[in-house]
């Protein structure tokens, strides 16, 4: 009985394996070979950033052994979360092939708004946060109107926004120039001190592997039932185990010091939610379609203007969220908030992480990976007592390298027939 079923399976191959011209990866060795093929054709994914991170960490660790100490890494995670949330918004806008240059200003404006409403006006902190988020999203809605109705390039609209919103921020803060947020308040504690209990961090670190295995198993079962090829159980199990081991080790290492900041947990939670929205919902599919070929998306009946509007609003809304987080991290809303390198760091993080500047390609995880690279450089240079002048130059150079890699990979993909 089973033998005949096997023979049957061999004579009528699975629905997506009938074409003998196509090579299919078999087993773990096959997966590795397929990965190498992809990289060779320019479909790099997150490989450059992982390699870059390894180089950066090796260099800084050899220059200063404190760099990879748990204490420094915990601080690194605190710092990552603020600009990382902004970078997550930048990923959204880059995916549709547009850009928002005003994310720094919007984050500074949100922190000023928070300070004025919470500290000066005495509003409840939750209301102040909500108001700052709403105003941030409204700025994005304004860009969307300028872009959709008046055909204003996003580059110009947001450049104008950069200056106007900075002006708003300065106006709000008035002559005092900065507002101190009260120490000991939950928001400041969240930004500076709160870390997960060790037990919680171990449970959370185990979660991705478990979820990955369960979902992968269910998908594989459904695909087999439908007569489609599915990922072999062995490679699924292997990947889940590797991920769990890596994450548990990270949790253990960070727990040697204070532990994993809740703020970083929030950031990762947002990244995971965004990743789901981009890859598993109709909205996400349409975002990628608009970024890949706007006219094709329009003809397919996608409401292109709506997609652009959501992208702009998410970008500036998340920028405002990042501004609130950095205000809580610094326990102040000042005129300097959101100025300087915040803007470029956020955009650089998204691009370094592997989101294309040309639209249509990107992932929420690029914000996470990219910001870790950027903050590692910043932290390493600070430990070496180098001034911000050098830090700017080095970060700028890393951004330039990331864009060159993106550009070359794009060309290579085009010649290898991959989008």
């Amino acid at each position: 009985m089973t033998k005949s079923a096997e023979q049957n399976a061999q004579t009528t191959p699975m629905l997506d394996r009938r074409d003998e011209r196509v090579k299919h990866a078999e087993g773990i060795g096959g997966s590795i070979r397929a990965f190498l093929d992809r990289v060779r054709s320019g479909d790099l994914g997150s490989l450059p950033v992982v390699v870059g991170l390894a180089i950066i960490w090796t260099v800084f660790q050899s220059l200063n052994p404190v760099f990879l100490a748990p204490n420094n890494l915990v601080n690194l995670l605190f710092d990552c979360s603020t600009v990382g949330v902004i970078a997550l918004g930048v990923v959204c806008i880059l995916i549709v092939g547009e850009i928002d240059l005003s994310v720094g200003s919007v984050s500074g404006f949100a922190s000023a708004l928070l300070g004025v409403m919470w500290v000066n006006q005495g509003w409840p902190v939750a209301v102040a946060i909500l108001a700052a988020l709403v105003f941030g999203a409204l700025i994005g809605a304004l860009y969307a109107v300028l872009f959709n109705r008046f055909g204003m390039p996003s580059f110009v609209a947001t450049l104008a926004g950069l200056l106007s919103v900075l002006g708003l921020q300065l106006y709000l803060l008035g002559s005092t120039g900065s507002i101190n947020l009260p120490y000991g308040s939950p928001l400041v504690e969240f930004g500076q001190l709160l870390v997960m209990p060790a037990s919680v961090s171990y449970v959370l670190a185990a979660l991705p592997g478990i979820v990955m295995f369960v979902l992968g198993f269910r998908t594989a079962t459904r695909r087999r039932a439908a007569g489609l090829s599915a990922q072999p159980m062995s490679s699924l199990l292997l990947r889940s185990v590797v991920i769990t081991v890596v994450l548990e080790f990270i949790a253990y290492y960070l727990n040697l010091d204070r532990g994993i900041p809740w703020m970083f947990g929030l950031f990762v939670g947002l990244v995971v939610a965004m990743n789901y929205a981009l890859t598993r919902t109709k909205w996400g599919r349409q975002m990628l379609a608009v970024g890949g070929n706007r006219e094709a998306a329009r003809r397919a009946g996608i409401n292109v203007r709506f997609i652009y509007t959501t992208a702009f609003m998410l970008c500036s809304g998340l920028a405002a969220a990042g501004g609130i987080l950095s205000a809580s991290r610094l326990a102040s809303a000042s005129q300097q908030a959101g100025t300087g390198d915040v803007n470029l760091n956020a955009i650089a993080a998204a691009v370094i992480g592997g989101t294309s500047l040309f639209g249509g390609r990107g992932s929420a995880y690029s914000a996470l990976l990219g910001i870790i690279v950027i903050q590692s450089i910043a932290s390493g240079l600070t430990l070496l007592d180098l001034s911000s002048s050098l830090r700017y130059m080095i970060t700028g150079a890393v951004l330039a390298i990331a864009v060159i890699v993106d550009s070359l990979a794009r060309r290579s993909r085009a010649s290898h027939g991959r989008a």
Partner: protein
Amino acid sequence: MDRNQEQSDTREPVLSLRGISKNFGAVSALTNIDLDVHAGEVVALVGDNGAGKSTLVKTLAGVHQPTSGTIIFRGKPVTLTDPSAALRLGIATVFQDLALCENLDVVANIFLGRELSPYRLDEVSMELKAWTLLNELSARIPSVREPVASLSGGQRQTVAIARSLLLEPKLILLDEPTAALGVAQTAEVLDLIERVRERGLGVIMISHNMEDVRAVADRIVVLRLGRNNGVFDPDASNEELVSAITGAANNSVSRRAHRRQAQSGQAPAPEGRQ
């Protein structure tokens, strides 16, 4: 398709146009066009540049609205206010510049704008349906999980046609489906059109290539300067077709044919067909 159905379909066309005119300001792009398309029939729309072929197809796709005249679709007069109205009725259009997203895979392209379960995309069902559609067309697509950028021109045309079939249309409009394709790929697309016809759909196909038109069309409708200028069988002679398209019995093509005939005493048609 069985013969009975074919006969009943022959009596009532899927689509008939009566007196369609379209003016752009002072220019009349279409004047009094009549056209019938039956189920399981490929109608080729030929004509010189500016004859109004594309305008007619855009009118049927709902992109343009006719200035006057009636469109009767499956026995009922209809107005096509916009492209989605045409789609809802069951008129699908494959545009010349395919309109695929190269960064997305085949499944995503076929289901673009019509994804299943919007908050938790049902990838398995979509992939299954994509394979079903492609297999019905006997399409040669190596993998539906590769981005469209990796496909050849003929394969992209296949994906575009498969996508137009997703909503189970009754009529499909193809704007220059074989332009910019190589010999083998053109043959593949022509096979595909025949398979669409076998599914009982009406097909309107615009083409400049007489060879392709003769190969698949059941009837050839000639437009000239926005007017009907004759309906031909696919075995009509090249001379007849060309004179209908150019509007003169004495044109450069016929003069050449007559010269050849006088020399060799042969019929002009085979020469025209090469």
